């Protein structure tokens, strides 16, 4: 296993850890953090592949992933603040009646 394979495997491991956190944690804030871990794992695989093939588009894509992540967090946090102020709870179980 060379270093690029190792890093892609590491990205898979980190993605799995993030997914595990999304499934098992009950706190809404920590679930968001685990989503960010998953996104970081995707960026790691992008960067590893881009460096391996010396391709600019791979690194450019990471820039756009960062932009999308920033928008996602800004909007998600706004929605989260509204939801939590209405239900007075961060437990994801209290939002089971959400639709859509």
């Amino acid at each position, binding site marked *: 296993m060379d270093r690029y394979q190792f890093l892609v495997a590491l990205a898979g491991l*980190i993605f799995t850890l993030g997914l595990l956190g999304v499934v098992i944690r*009950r706190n809404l*804030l*920590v679930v968001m953090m685990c989503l960010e871990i998953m996104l970081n794992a995707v960026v790691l695989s992008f960067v590893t592949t881009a460096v391996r093939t*010396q391709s600019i588009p791979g690194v450019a894509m990471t820039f756009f992933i960062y932009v999308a*992540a*920033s928008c996602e967090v800004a909007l998600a946090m706004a929605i989260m603040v*509204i939801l939590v102020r209405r239900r007075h709870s961060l437990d994801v179980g209290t939002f089971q009646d959400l639709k859509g």
Partner: protein
Amino acid sequence: MSGIFIAFFSALAVVFAIMVITMRQPMRAALSLVAHMVCLAALYACLGAHVVAVFQVLIYVGAVMVFMVYTIMLLDDRDMSYQWVFSRLALPAVVVAGLVAAALWVLIGRLPVTAPAIATAAGDSFTFSSFSVAFMQHYWFHFELATVLLLIGIIAAWAAVKEGSNG
């Protein structure tokens, strides 16, 4: 030498990711996530992708995590999720995640090693000057679209907060 650093920061990144999942208090989980992201930035620096390392620190650690920390300070209630940290699916989820991670590790390790010549002939295409020139030559329109997306994100967040305060 960089191999040692890559192994070191990889191990740290995994440890901090596990800490994010296991920490009871959201603020401690957020600080673990910051450390995790810094470790990934160090990995990018070890790979020679300095641009991405700086993006990682400035955008993720500097901007996104500040959002998170502010939200934690606004919302940190001691509710059911504080007493019972994990859901009922924790044990089967851990088993399945372990199997998936092991399968990914083995499968990726068996992939053929390709393009070693390109990889070893890594130039300085990911330093700031060369990357910036290439980026603005090929992706200037996408860059402008990204600014529009950020503006839409700001407006959407503002509209969501306004709608929530009205309702």
